[in-house]
């Protein structure tokens, strides 16, 4: 049954690639502008006909993000004075508010706070929901500019940042979010500004029930590969994810835009096969990871079996390692969600990753380390192209020719920039992890002993740098040290990838096309797709396997031996 469910959902995902890819293509096209879009350009006082080279595009992206950050920080710090705060929640402290705004600005959605305990309805809407739209639109806009540069028939212009962001929000994100929100409410998700309810349970106890405008946040949370939950326990909370259908829609929403971008790119390039090769490479990695996490979680935890818990599949139960998981999803949907949320760098969770078996937890961590299995809206595509460029470079070295990518010569400058982006990622993950494990104060935040405790820290910086936002949530991350350093990791992960890769696109755009010759390595073949997957796995393994061995692998081996740690 699990495999049938995977098959059905992935088939729906694949069927949506072409229509949504075409839709995105029309959004990225330059004309015509609709009336609301023209009005927006007038209000902002910008000229939609102004093309931008990569430096200008990058500058405008950073400046626009900076102002979003400032406005949001102010709103969070003034929460106590603002409306729609029925629970009377006070403002977040400065270090926590910094962490929150950076987190949502960078599409990470790491949450060092608990939603129902820390944010008013106003903040959930005006700060969190806004960021979910703008950070996704920023990522998609960057991908559009990046693609224009790669295709590069236009000289140096990569498009106009404001036009891209406005169109993505108005034409894609807003209409999709609105329609999906109504489906979500129909399935049982709240959407209200009423204060928290009070129930008297059948046994006579009082149950206070946190409510809020949940559905309108949940849709963009996943369409925008954001991931931050309305409630502390995110998509495991029945109000965020009431039924298996909402869980399936969450999963499909996360994959919708990253998967479709591969087709958009193929069409833009005039070579659909190239788009499908990228899609295929991502899908192969995805299936490998899905199989791994499903198998290990379904096999369960032998320590629990020895204590009398029955984890087998029978006619009346789905079994598996159910600590931190919900009955309505079982292991199959949970595994698919975990694979998707860390592939698409969303970071929402419908189960507690901290309570996975060692090798079950290995999968989300590894996917964030690779960071390009579909990836976040826009940035996943950009990350994958890093490895395509690296792939042609390595293949070029093997045969002793100057590598070419999409008809442009790849030379020292481009490769250096690609390597800057490829190396900033592990440097941030491993560097901050190393720093945290030697600071006694940082270790006080651990919730688990032994290798699993190390995994909690490694997971935190991996998640921050990959702009994922999921957590081994036992880690008490709301301390000044973690708020600050994870905040920095998020900034490194976002801008030290986006900006160098925009530069690569700008440099390639300015180059003359070289004609295809017998010495050209075609990049739209299964062979090259395989080579790229291979490069991704080799680079990932060389970089991260030592740390993964100390964390999840050691954890799993101890679990199999039945070791219990105090």
């Amino acid at each position: 049954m699990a495999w049938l469910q995977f098959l059905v959902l992935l088939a729906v995902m694949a069927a949506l690639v072409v229509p949504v890819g075409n839709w995105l293509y029309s959004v990225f096209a330059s004309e015509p502008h609709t009336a609301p879009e023209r009005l927006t350009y007038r209000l902002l006082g910008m000229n939609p006909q102004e093309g931008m080279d990569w430096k200008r595009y990058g500058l405008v992206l950073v400046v626009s993000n900076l102002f979003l950050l400032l406005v949001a920080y102010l709103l969070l710090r003034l929460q106590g004075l603002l409306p729609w705060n029925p629970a009377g929640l006070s403002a977040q402290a400065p270090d926590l508010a910094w962490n929150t705004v950076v987190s949502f600005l960078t599409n990470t959605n790491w949450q060092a706070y608990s939603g129902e305990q820390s944010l008013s309805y106003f903040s959930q809407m005006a700060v969190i929901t806004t960021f979910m739209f703008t950070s996704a639109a920023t990522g998609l806009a960057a991908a559009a500019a990046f693609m224009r540069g790669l295709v590069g028939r236009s000289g140096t212009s990569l498009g106009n940042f404001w036009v891209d962001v406005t169109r993505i929000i108005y034409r894609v994100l807003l209409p999709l979010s609105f329609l999906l929100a109504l489906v979500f409410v129909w399935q049982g998700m709240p959407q209200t500004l009423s204060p928290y309810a009070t129930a008297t349970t059948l046994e006579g106890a009082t149950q206070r029930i946190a409510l809020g405008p949940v559905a309108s946040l949940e849709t963009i949370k996943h369409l925008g590969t954001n991931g931050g939950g309305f409630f502390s326990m995110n998509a495991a909370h029945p109000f965020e994810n009431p039924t298996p259908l909402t869980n399936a829609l969450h999963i499909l929403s996360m994959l919708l835009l990253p998967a479709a971008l591969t087709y958009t790119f193929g069409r833009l390039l005039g070579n659909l096969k190239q788009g499908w090769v990228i899609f295929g490479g991502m899908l192969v990695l995805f299936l490998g990871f899905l199989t791994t996490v499903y198998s290990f979680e379904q096999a369960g935890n032998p320590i629990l079996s020895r204590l009398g818990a029955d984890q087998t599949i029978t006619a009346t139960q789905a079994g598996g390692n159910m600590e931190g998981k919900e009955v309505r999803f079982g292991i199959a949907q949970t595994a698919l969600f975990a694979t998707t949320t860390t592939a698409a760098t969303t970071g929402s969770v419908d189960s507690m990753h901290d309570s996975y078996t060692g090798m079950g937890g290995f999968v989300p961590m590894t996917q964030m380390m690779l960071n390009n299995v579909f990836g976040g809206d826009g940035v996943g595509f950009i990350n994958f192209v890093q490895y395509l460029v690296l792939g042609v470079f390595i293949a070029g070295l093997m045969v002793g020719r100057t590598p070419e990518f999409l008809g442009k010569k790849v030379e020292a400058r481009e490769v250096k920039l690609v390597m800057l982006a490829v190396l900033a990622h592990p440097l941030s993950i491993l560097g901050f992890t190393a720093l945290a494990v030697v600071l006694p104060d940082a270790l006080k935040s651990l919730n688990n002993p032994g290798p699993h405790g190390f995994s909690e820290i490694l997971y935190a910086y991996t998640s921050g740098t990959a702009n994922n936002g999921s957590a081994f949530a036992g880690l008490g991350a709301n301390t000044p040290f973690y708020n600050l350093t994870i905040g920095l990791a998020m900034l490194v992960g976002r801008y030290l990838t986006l900006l160098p890769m925009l530069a690569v696109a700008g440099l390639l755009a300015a180059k003359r096309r070289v004609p295809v010759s017998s010495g050209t390595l075609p990049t739209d073949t299964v062979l090259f797709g395989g080579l790229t997957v291979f490069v991704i796995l080799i680079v990932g393994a060389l970089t991260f396997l030592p740390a993964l061995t100390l964390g999840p692998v050691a954890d799993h081996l101890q679990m199999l031996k039945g070791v219990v740690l105090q």
Partner: protein
Amino acid sequence: MNSAEMTPPDLPARPAPLPRLLLSAFLAAVLFTLITGLAYPLLTTTVAGVLFPQQAGGSLITRGGQVVGSAVLGQNFTAPQYLHGRPSMTNKTDGSGPQPYNAENSGASNWGPTNAKLAEAVRERVAAVRRENGLGAGTPVPVDLATASGSGLDPDITLAGALLQVNRIAQARNLTPAQVEGVIRAHFTPRQLSVLGEPRVNVLAVNLALDGAR
């Protein structure tokens, strides 16, 4: 295939000056906050409130004019005449100690697989389930009754976990086991659309029905 329509606009002779750019960026932050952060959620609230008022308000269930819970959230059951839900690791709202099924403060254990606290908790839960339901030592206990959920508010248990409690409930209510099992099976939810998720039993729905049948 013609990709000419994707050609971006040309570079201007001089891009907009920096003060102009800063003003645009500030206005954009304000405008997008108003549109995506206020207009969109408020419109959604209004439309959803008209189309699905019950769900939009949290699927609250009322009995005799009093709210008794939410149809999609679990609540804590410990009395023998009620079907019991899964262990819940939620805390009091001020964090001062455990309070199962606190719907104002969702939470999980986040214990790793080798954590001694997890092993100890599972040992105690297995023992409690066997004791309360008169099962012999060594009887396997369905894993959902031995482990805490992700939200701490899981409304469901497996059919295995429900059937195991039939005799205890029947005894406490002076019903036959067949009657209790009938109520449970009447509230059994199969996979959605025949393929999605897992089959399950909503604990609160069963208990409301049991109370209603009395």
